[in-house]
């Protein structure tokens, strides 16, 4: 079910501002790819262009090609709504629906896909998703409470549960663990390992150890200067990038000798 992603010569704009320039990268199906790089280099921007969330910002557009299992993501016959149902996303800042209960939050995507479900089936999905996201034990007694009543880290795990409950073919995660403690972080990392067997996963992270632990491939982005667009400096097997990077900037960043 998992799909591969093939990006070639992608330029990403906010209005006239070129934020990310000329990215070419293949992402294999059923693999975990980590995006690393300094703040503002366009990791989130690039990630959002992979499920067409970039274009919901006024004036934002892309040039170039993204192929999902050979299908042109930005082709005329691609409906962005269907794209986003197939490619799930976890945002940098937790964003559960504050007006919905925890239970309904997990099922929000399911309801959009307008699958009719029995109560028991729905209960199963909620429990499975929350368990995978490592949140079940903390919320099982209060599934009917509003999602906004959780702590920041719990909210983020709720968002992860919401994203995986629809079993997307590709999962994009933008710094999913930046608000989490080490225990929940390792729960999420276990989840990523587990999901890898079925899904294609792309994760943005500022945590080098995390990138080294969870990913098969690593891509390093960098800015050539203030106001210049971000670029993909290099990408490859995670072991290779971490042990033997070709670009000096990559090595400096990984070793924390940056800036």
């Amino acid at each position, binding site marked *: 079910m998992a799909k591969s992603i093939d990006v070639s010569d992608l330029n990403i704009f906010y209005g006239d501002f070129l934020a990310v320039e000329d990215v070419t990268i293949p992402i294999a199906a059923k693999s975990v790819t980590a995006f690393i790089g300094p703040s503002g280099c366009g990791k989130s921007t690039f990630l959002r262009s992979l499920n067409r*969330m970039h274009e919901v910002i006024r004036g934002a557009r892309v040039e170039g090609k993204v192929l999902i299992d050979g299908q042109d993501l930005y082709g005329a016959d691609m409906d962005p709504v*269907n794209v986003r*149902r197939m490619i799930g996303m976890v945002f940098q800042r937790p964003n559960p629906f504050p*007006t919905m209960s925890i239970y309904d939050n997990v099922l929000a995507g399911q309801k*959009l896909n307008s699958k009719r479900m029995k109560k028991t089936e729905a209960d199963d999905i909620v429990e499975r998703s929350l368990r995978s996201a490592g949140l079940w034990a903390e919320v099982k007694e209060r599934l009917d409470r509003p999602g906004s009543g959780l702590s920041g880290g719990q909210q983020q795990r709720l968002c992860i549960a*919401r*994203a995986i409950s629809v079993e997307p073919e590709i999962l994009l995660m933008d710094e999913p663990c930046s608000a989490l403690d080490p225990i929940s972080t390792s729960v999420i990392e276990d989840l990523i390992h587990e999901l890898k067997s079925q899904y294609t996963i792309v994760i943005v992270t500022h945590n080098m150890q995390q990138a080294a632990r969870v990913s098969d491939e690593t891509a390093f982005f960098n800015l050539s200067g203030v106001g210049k667009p971000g670029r993909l400096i290099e990408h490859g097997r995670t072991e290779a990038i971490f042990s033997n990077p070709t670009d000096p900037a990559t090595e400096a960043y990984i070793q924390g000798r940056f800036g």
Partner: protein
Amino acid sequence: MTSTQAPAPGRASVRRPGDRIFSGLSLSAGVLILVILAGVAIFLTVQGIPGITAHPDEVKSGKSFLPYVWPLVYGTLIAATIAMVIAVPVAIGVALFISHYAPRKLGQSLGYLIDLLAAVPSVVYGLWGIGFLAPHMVPFYAWLDEHLGFLPFFGPASATGRTILTASIVLAVMILPIMTAICREIFLQTPRLHEEAALALGATRWEMARLAIFPYARSGIVSAAMLGLGRALGETLAVAMVLSVGVGTVTANLIGSDNPSTIAANIALGFAEATGKSVNALIASGLVLFVITFLVNFAARSIVDRRKEFSGAN
């Protein structure tokens, strides 16, 4: 260690001058509002009681208070209800179009236009109701009578078009701009984060509105509706102009020539020539309107409060 001693008893209650001034100002503003409200209520009650207890022979209508005021209450509620049923969905739809569907330029121009409409005085709407809407509704009423006449609402049709339904439509048009303006403002405040959460799950724009915008805007929509309703309940001129009947009748027929009137319109039409206990009766009907408005507002607030913790305001 001395540094870990509990703070001296007086310390906790130190108040900054800014805080003091501000809390004093807001307290007095709150008290002032209550005093004004109480003053209005006391005036209405004191002046109204003689009207309520008046003997039928002492007032112009020749009826005791309840039979006198009942048709007016009925007319007021009918007119306001129809106006709300028409105006609320339209206001929400137009506001959503302006805030989330229209291109930015078009949305802004429409927004200005609606703000302007909100400032049009009610006499203009009354004139429009009599001069334009009423005659143009006549064929439609005839059609209703012919095809839906079996329903009690569409009995014999009026020949002039000056019916309670016409008055309600005028009211709906009148309250539309203010409700639209408020709804638009609130829809625009929806956190981007929640909109994106919905979109990233594969929501269409309408589903995004249902998942992220409406729940967030719920209490604001209720406030907008309450403002509109307040205006619809209290509107005198437009209704008086369109209907120009006195006390009116209680009838289910919305398109007939015998129409219910509203409390506000009745006061406007009757006050100039009323004398003695008749004045008190009019004031008492005003008291009834006051109470109705209060009850409706309380009901609306309690609906909003019931799911307060889900409001997303925290």
